């Protein structure tokens, strides 16, 4: 750090800054100092000019699962069709990683964000990745947003952030879900009901609406009024659940799962994917698209379908692997 300070002070780095930045240098300390500084910098630049060689970019994609402890997310969470179709859009389809971590923990936990940072760092290093596209689903978006919002929490985070070009967050639970509140619920005076009904995971506690509001205000970025994230974070929003035994679309991702989401919709707003209100999915970053605007047949994506190769979602993501 001390060496970096000296280099900047002497102008070695400053001389390579863009024109606008050099102009700003003056305004920070005053006009008179600026004139002297720029004259000196030009001299220095002549002595210390350097050239930088850039290797060809290597783009990779990482699939980051949602709540749960995964040991084979490729088979169990995303399923091979989704992963393989998406990575097929890469210049080198072998440059992919499917994350397997314990996202039953709080987002900052070493078994959650720590595990994710470890697997992303290994992937970046082993494949020499220079451009990293992250695809998250559900609470995976929160774990990723923890890393983006808290770059100093772990010394591995900055390198990961610097490599990321964007996060495509499929149905992110950015503002939590009333379903988490419903299962944690507290009432009885003698104790908290979470203990009475059996302990729920920290990830479920974290995704209660009021908890996420607090974490968004205190610890996370990208929501309304807060500083933006250092990299693009854009959401795909699922807006409805459609299930009918005669409709083959209802079976994409699993009929039973979609049936459950029909029920959980009763706890949610009229616009929801069965697990998250649209407002939660849209709460952080920007909205890339709402399901019906890009899915085949204008089909909605239930919360279960937004991690599967349903209605052309895999093709949309594949075409974005640039």
């Amino acid at each position, binding site marked *: 750090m001390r060496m970096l*300070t000296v280099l900047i002070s002497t102008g070695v780095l400053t001389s390579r800054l863009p024109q606008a930045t050099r102009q700003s240098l003056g305004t920070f300390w005053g006009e008179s100092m600026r004139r002297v500084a720029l004259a000196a910098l030009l001299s220095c630049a002549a002595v210390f000019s350097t050239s930088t060689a850039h290797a060809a970019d290597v783009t990779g994609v990482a699939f980051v699962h949602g709540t749960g402890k995964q040991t084979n997310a490729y088979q169990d969470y995303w399923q091979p069709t989704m992963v393989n179709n998406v990575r097929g859009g890469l210049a080198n389809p072998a440059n992919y990683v499917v994350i397997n971590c314990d996202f039953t923990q709080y987002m900052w936990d070493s078994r959650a964000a720590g595990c994710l940072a470890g697997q992303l760092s290994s992937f970046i290093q082993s494949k020499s990745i220079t451009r990293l596209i992250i695809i998250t689903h559900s609470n995976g978006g929160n774990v990723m947003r923890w890393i983006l919002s808290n770059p100093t929490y772990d010394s591995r985070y900055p390198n990961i952030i610097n490599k990321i070009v964007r996060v495509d967050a499929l149905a992110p639970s950015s503002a939590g879900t009333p379903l988490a509140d419903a299962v944690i619920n*507290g009432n009885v005076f003698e104790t908290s009901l979470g203990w009475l009904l059996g302990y729920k995971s920290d990830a479920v506690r974290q995704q209660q609406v009021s*908890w996420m509001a*607090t974490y968004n205000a205190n610890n996370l970025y990208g929501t309304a009024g807060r*500083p933006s994230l250092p990299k693009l974070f854009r959401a795909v929003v699922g807006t409805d659940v459609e299930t009918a035994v005669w409709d083959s679309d209802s079976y994409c991702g*699993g009929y039973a799962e979609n049936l*459950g989401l029909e029920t*959980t919709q009763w706890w949610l707003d009229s616009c929801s994917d069965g697990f998250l209100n649209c407002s939660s999915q849209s709460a952080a970053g920007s909205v890339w698209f709402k399901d019906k605007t890009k899915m085949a047949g204008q089909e909605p994506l239930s919360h279960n379908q937004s991690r599967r190769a349903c209605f052309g979602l895999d093709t949309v993501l594949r075409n974005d692997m640039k």
Partner: protein
Amino acid sequence: MRTHTILSLSLLAGLVALFGNAHAQQALLATTRADMQPHRLVSLPAPTAAIERKPVAFAWALDPSVALSQPAPLRASSREYWQTVDDVSLAKGLDLPTTAQGALIRISPAQGAAPLQEAALSVTDGKRPITIARLADAQSLQQAGMPVSAGTQVLRLGAGSGAGHAVLRASNARGNYVVHVFEPASDVVLDAQPSRNSGLAGQPMQVTIRASRSGVNAAAQVQALLVAPDGRNTPVSVQRAADGSLQAVFTPAGNSRTAGLWELQVFGMVGDAPRDVRTAFAIAQPTASFVGNLQQSTDMHVSLAVRAASAGRYEARGTLYATGPDGQLHAVSEAHAAAWMEPGQHRLTLPFAKAHLPIGYGAPFELRQLELHDQSRMAPLELRTRAARL
């Protein structure tokens, strides 16, 4: 060649004199009521969990056209309530007040209770049956991501339901159950909103509680419970304020044994309608604070003095505002810096970068939203909305 090198070194020395030593120290601006600042510091044992020990600093550019504002604490709204009941009550008929059609009733067996059979459940209005739509079973709900207890049943009241009472009977109940009634169509609402998103142990917090019926303020009787992340709880008194709202004022104390947020859980009656609402906030033990001054350097780095009373990893974060072509201040850069600290005085340097200044933006600058966090205990310690004019 030798002459050239000497000349260059002389030039460098001059530049170091110009820039390297151009540090100016100034006091942070006085805090306001909106800010949070420890009045005393506590000494806690060093955290046992693995935590990063290397110093890390990071900064990124912000879009100056996007206005920033600290979000107001969430106003939690409830159209629901919970009851803990036993098998005798369920066999006899459990009276559930309702205020609207289409209530969702979820019955969950507590530990050791018998799972309820779908066919054994019935609902009446006291005399006539209310139709019920039996929704997905516990397994489908779990697969959908809602981790309900095994044996949970969910009913949705149909024809015959509405404002009044529903009587729930279960013929095969054994043990204790939790009954959750959610009325999505109800206009009877109980709200709770904390005064801030985070607080400090030993300093007062306030939660405002309001009841409404059809959007108009309504009278309510409430009780409140302060619940720490580790489950310890304390009753909190609730007072009526001059504006008719209810205020719970309390001073969180003690150190939670587990991570997480504190909650104020409110249990109320809005007329005959039960309503429960919860709200969450972070409470920190005041383990460190800003000393109250900063130093700025020519490279736009801002160094802050920090006093740590407990060993831990502390992070400073802040937003740099620059004056734009319109003469107004706009957020242009966000910077964080963190390091492990033993008790004592230390410095954290926010690495704002000149490269983050858009064309036409410059002095005067302001440092805003300056925060100090205890990363090892996951808590915000200090917040200064306007920290310094640079």
